[in-house]
Structure formats: structure tokens, C-alpha cells
């Protein structure tokens, strides 16, 4: 994670689909173009589905970090339409 300057972070491990994506989306909306968000998400469905939804929204995924506690941190750069 040290490779990136994280501007904000959001924890979506406390919600379930489809709120996972909504929570991440809202956090991204609050950022400016080019800023970087760290999203903490659970193993299983969230890590399988949320990154793809964020990609489809047009943002840039930079890295997926395994926290080795059954959570992951997804590093995303906001891309304005």
C-alpha cells in the first residue's frame, strides 16, 4: 500500500451486497478526479463482485492487498466521467 498515496478509505466489511457497492460508490463520489480510495472488503462475494462493479463504473483499480485476516484492501483511483 506504500506505493500509493491514499486520500481516503472506506470499510465495507460491515455491510452486505448490494450495499457493499453502494457504500464504495458513495465514498468514491466524494473524491476528486485522480484521488485514491482504499476500500476494505470481505473475502467471498464482496471481493469477487465489488471490484468488477467499480471497474464497470469507469474507475481505475490499482491493487488488491490481502490483509491476511479474511479481508482485502482494494486501492482505487477515481476517474471522473
Amino acid at each position, binding site marked *: 500500500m506504500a506505493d500509493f498515496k491514499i486520500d481516503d478509505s472506506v470499510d465495507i466489511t460491515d455491510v452486505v451486497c448490494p450495499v457493499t457497492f453502494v457504500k464504495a460508490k458513495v465514498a468514491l463520489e466524494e473524491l476528486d478526479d485522480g484521488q485514491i480510495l482504499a476500500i476494505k472488503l470481505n473475502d467471498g462475494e464482496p*471481493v*469477487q463482485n465489488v471490484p468488477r462493479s467499480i471497474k464497470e463504473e469507469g474507475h481505475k483499480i490499482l491493487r488488491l492487498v490481502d490483509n491476511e485476516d479474511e479481508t482485502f484492501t482494494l486501492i482505487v483511483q477515481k476517474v471522473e466521467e
Partner: protein
Amino acid sequence: MESDKTMAVDYKTLKNGGFMRQKQKNNFSLRIAVVGGNLTTENLVKIAEVAEKYGDGHVHLTSRQGVEIPFIKLEDIDAVKEELAKGDCRPGVCGPRVRTVTACQGNQICPSGNIDTYDIAKKIDERYFGRELPHKFKFGVTGCRNNCLKAEENDVGIKGALAVDWKESECINCGLCEKVCREDAITIKDGKVVVDYKKCNSCGRCAKSCPTDAWDTTEAYELSFGGTFGNHIAKGVNPIGLITSEEQLFRVTDAAIEYFKENGNAGERFKFTIDRVGREDFYKKLKEAYDG
């Protein structure tokens, strides 16, 4: 005599033409032809008008994505057909022939879709709809392995797949593909993505998740044969590999239809023809078509 003949109700012909006899005397439930579960607003408006004017004001959505207008009176059948044609609607079919081709929304709408299911459903419909066979024959097209359309229930099921090949030059080593693979077919070693193609089921999740599209992908079809879900229940099986072009797809479906036409006994579903004549023989025919 002549008038007697013309007066006699030919139920079989009516049924073949999509008019399903109801319990109520002289009432028919009219099946509308629907392809891939899509109707235009023009179709829907006309269906609503006909149901209001000639039916009892309701329609039934069938188990195979069709629409039926119940309570059509025998004497109105011609008028109803004519009326529906104005809304670009045609009657469906019943009996021993190729039936409604069903489809999920596919890759034009659904993020999970690997293939354009509606396009394939339309092409199958154009090619085979209504073709006379020993028994009913159903095609279903599903866009991906989520299998919302239940491909294996059909005599021939078509499932969208994605053949994938890692592109090292585009890869940023984010690790997502390894994580999203449900078959544990991907491992990342020293910055290299290794795909175990024995485990890979071509679901396409790795490529769809990839932030940099670091995969060469080919749309593909996985077929199943001999599914039936009525009085007997059997899942269609897939004896051949991935099909990677439409031309190859139709060679194989042509072979399956021909095989059924040549070998099927009247009233025998495809699965039972395959079982009776022998799977090896059928698989050989499919393989020939597959190889071209």
C-alpha cells in the same frame, strides 16, 4: 359435405398454430411467438388490445418466456390473427417441432454475460423455429455460467463462455484474477499469472474483473444435449469442447437436429433417442460437425 368439412374444427391444426384448447368449450389460449424473452412496446400494446377486445382482459406469461392470451373464441381466430399481425405479433407453435427459443438478457444488458444471447436466439429461431421433428424440441441460450436461463433443461442448451489468455504486457499484478477465480485455476508466481486450463471453466470472471483488460478473450459457446424437464427429468450433457465461432455453433446444432430427425421415433424426446441409439454414435456425429 364441403361445408361440413370446413365447419369441422381441426383442433390439431389450431394447436400447431399456437391456439391451445381450453377446458372451456370453444375457448382457446393463443400462444404468441416470442424470441429470447423480448417483446417491443408495439407488441405489448397490441397484445393488450387483443386481450381486452377478444380475451377476458388478462394474459398468461408462460414458463418459456412466452405470452398466451386466454379465452379467445373459436369464431374470432382469424380476426385475432389479423389484428395481432398489425402489432408485428405472430402466433407461436405447439406439437412436435422446434419451439420457442428462450434466452437470458446476455452481454448487451447483463454485466455477467459472455455472449449476445438475443442475437443467437434470433438466429436459431430464424433457422429452426417450427421445424417438424419427432417430438417437441427446445433451445435455450444463457449468457454465462450463472445459468439464469437453465441451459441444461433444454434439448439443446447454449451457454456463453469466454476463452482467456493472459497478456503480460498489460498486467499490473493487482492480484484480482487469482482472487475472483472460483475454480482455483489461477496462481500468481513472481509476477506471472499462470492459468491451469485443466481447472479453468471459461467463466470469464478473471477477464471481467481485470482493471487493465490484460486478457485476450474469445467469446465461446458451451453446448448441452438431451435435457428434458417434464414427465422425465434429465440434465443435458456436454460431450464436446468449447465452440468458438457462430459457424461452428450452427454446424453442431444442425448435426443435432439432423440426428434427431433421422433417428427419433415419433413421440420420443431427444434424450431418449440418444439413449436408445447410443451416445457414442451421437457424439461421433457431433464431433464431426465440431471439427468441420
